[in-house]
């Protein structure tokens, strides 16, 4: 499963990032939101291509969840908030918790 992280950190930043937990933005299935709606939201909020958006939507639908982004906490919260504005059910998970 592909995840997306933007930016190109400096080596110092990369070291700091490596010491920090990575956060995953996880979209959970709900029976209410239309498949076409979820695809549109993934394209709008996360910048996914049609193919990528459909793949994640199907993963949510068939497996109950899909990790749509992972990386630093602040940016993960930004994406979680944006997805919640579209009324998708979203949770954040850190790799420390797993």
């Amino acid at each position: 499963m592909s995840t997306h992280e933007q930016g190109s950190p400096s080596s110092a930043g990369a070291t700091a990032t490596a010491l920090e937990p990575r956060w995953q933005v996880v979209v959970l299935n709900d029976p209410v939101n239309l498949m076409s709606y979820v695809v549109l939201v993934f394209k709008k909020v996360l910048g996914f291509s049609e193919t990528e958006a459909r793949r994640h939507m199907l993963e949510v639908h068939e497996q109950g969840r899909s990790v749509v982004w992972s990386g630093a906490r602040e940016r993960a919260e930004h994406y979680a908030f944006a997805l919640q504005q579209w009324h998708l059910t979203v949770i954040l998970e850190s790799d420390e918790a797993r």
Partner: protein
Amino acid sequence: MKRVEIRLSLEAVLPLIAVIREAADSLSDDLAAPNSLGDIEPDLREGWREDLVSAQNEAITVLLALFDETFDESGVVGFDADNAEPVLRACAAVRLRLRERFLKALNEEVLESGDLEIESLQEPARKAFMCYLFLATIQELIIQHLDTSILDG
């Protein structure tokens, strides 16, 4: 600017508007999907929730504005780049609320497919399910005709 107008049967839709308004009113200080904030840091949570409720209310205001006095006379609603996104989001919020309040007895397959004999439901679930389908139809129309406006906006 691309604009899509649809003429609705007032006889069919007007009874549903009251249900939509009631569900929308119940969301004035409540999130349509309230169970997804547990992972947010506690000191951020309240501000986060307030911002989501505020955005939700703004979108619902745009949705309800479609069904004003002009609609009561003409039966016409119009969608364009200005209202497509908030209407789409508001429809999702109201559909989630209708499910939570009236349609919990329906299994997920029925909610996903909409495949159900309406006559098999008693009120208020019957009217709620009709609203649920009506709002999905609005969403499908917007996605079909105005997705580019939303993605570019």
